[in-house]
């Protein structure tokens, strides 16, 4: 409902003259322009997607690997985790000029920058996920004769997945932001570039068309990530409920004569 209201406002307010068209072009104009120049937008989206894809590989792949190692090895964790947590607080965006200086203004600098940008939440939540695994899980595994590799693969990894997924969702979002922002700052291709170049000529409909595409993309990614997360949420709630003390599940209790 709110969604529909927002769309309606987007159309009505500019047309009614309540907001200058320069600041908010009507939705219909934005969509028209988007359709007219769809090839241009499609090409730009492809570039952006390409950059986001590789950046996510760095952020998510690297984040999980390093997060697992740092979180899993006590010595490393005590030494490095505070460092990484502090770095996370630094607005990485201001470092982008360094990336362009080192790697040029092509896709590479954007991929690396966005990769680093999205790396931290993934790494930190993976480290946290590894740390907060119920000790009992590992004790039970050992009592069943699990070797250390088996403990890692069959217990630690599945148990850490819910937390890691949350980190991936946040990291993924930051990666998208990183790519788009870096395209806005210094670029010759991609959706962010379209935003900047049309902005400089004050072509609002084109700017908003690009922004709309970015919005849709981010929302789709977030929805997908949340969908996957929801499937695994039962793993977390199960652990929490057990710690709080058991109570019979109303659904199954009548079906079982004894507890």
């Amino acid at each position, binding site marked *: 409902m709110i969604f529909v209201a927002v769309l309606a406002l987007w159309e009505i307010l500019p047309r009614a003259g309540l907001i200058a068209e320069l600041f908010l072009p009507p939705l219909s104009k934005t969509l028209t322009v988007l359709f007219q120049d769809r090839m241009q937008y499609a090409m730009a989206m492809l570039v952006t997607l390409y950059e986001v894809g590789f950046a996510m590989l760095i952020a998510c792949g690297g984040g999980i690997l390093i997060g697992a190692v740092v979180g899993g090895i006590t010595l490393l964790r005590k030494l490095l985790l505070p460092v990484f947590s502090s770095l996370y607080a630094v607005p990485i965006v201001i470092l982008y000029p360094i990336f362009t200086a080192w790697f040029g203004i092509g896709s590479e600098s954007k991929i690396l920058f966005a990769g680093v940008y999205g790396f931290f939440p993934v790494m930190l939540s993976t480290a946290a996920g590894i740390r907060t695994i*119920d000790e*009992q*899980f590992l*004790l*039970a595994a*050992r*009592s*069943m*004769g*699990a070797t250390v590799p*088996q403990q890692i693969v*069959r*217990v630690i990894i*599945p*148990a850490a*997945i819910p937390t890691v997924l949350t980190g991936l969702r946040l990291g993924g979002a930051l990666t998208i932001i990183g790519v788009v922002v870096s395209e806005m700052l210094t670029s010759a291709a991609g959706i962010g570039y379209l935003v900047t170049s049309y902005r400089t000529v004050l072509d609002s409909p084109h700017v908003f068309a690009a922004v709309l595409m970015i919005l849709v993309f981010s929302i789709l990614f977030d929805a997908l990530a949340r969908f996957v997360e929801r499937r*695994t949420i*039962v*793993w*977390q*709630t*199960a*652990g929490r*409920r*057990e*710690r709080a*003390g*058991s*109570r*019979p*599940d109303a*659904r*199954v*209790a009548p079906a*079982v004569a*004894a*507890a």
Partner: protein
Amino acid sequence: MQHVAHVNLAHEDANPVALEIAGLSHVYDGREGQVPALDDISLSVGAGRFTVIVGPSGCGKTSLLMMMAGLRRQTTGTILCAGRPMPDPDPQRVGVVFQEASLYPWLTALDNIEFPLALRHAPREERCRRADEMLNLVGLQGFGSRYPHELSGGMKQRVSIARGLVQDPPVLLMDEPFAALDEQTRMTMGHELLRIWSMTNKTVVFITHSLTEAVYLADEVLVMSARPGRIIDRIAITLPRPRTYEMMATDVFGRLRDRIWQQIRSPA
């Protein structure tokens, strides 16, 4: 049903003593130096017997059980399970059931029960067969494809027991498995456990805080002192089997329970 201590289980060596502990002491490093946790524990559990250990909190009974399971190494003394030492966990000799069922939430009940067999890379057919058998044994037929979060506390513990028994170990160690359950469920589960035990002839060592539970379940109750834990009394429970709820109201029951309580309150 009578349980005779010298019954030989076909797959066991002819050893009537399932578990033997001699001179076991344990010291660990605390914040202010060495802390004696267990002091010269010696005990002997006959095959097929149901032994319960009670004692005040912190007396070391869980540590003792962990050592019997091979999950922890004692400082001195020996533990022999079916005649052989237990330096490491051996799920084919000793099954363990913890207080928190510790079922893996990403696996179904059947998958959880199969887990020890999967670790051993047992063939699929054997895994499915054994898991099904265990599921039926603990009275959960039809619930195999449920996930732990869909099971009640009592059901989760049943799965945990099934998991501990799936490799048919002669010994089953249980660390306050019913402590997290409400009283009614607890009583039901105790009764269920005795049923499962009578059908499988396992040697059971069971830790509990509940004196009623101890008397109800046990052939013998070992009473431990506060830290450093020592065995201060062995009480033979002479109540006939199968045990019934009605026995809990008898004088004999009450006297046995009182005796345990006296020992714990003011150790001899």
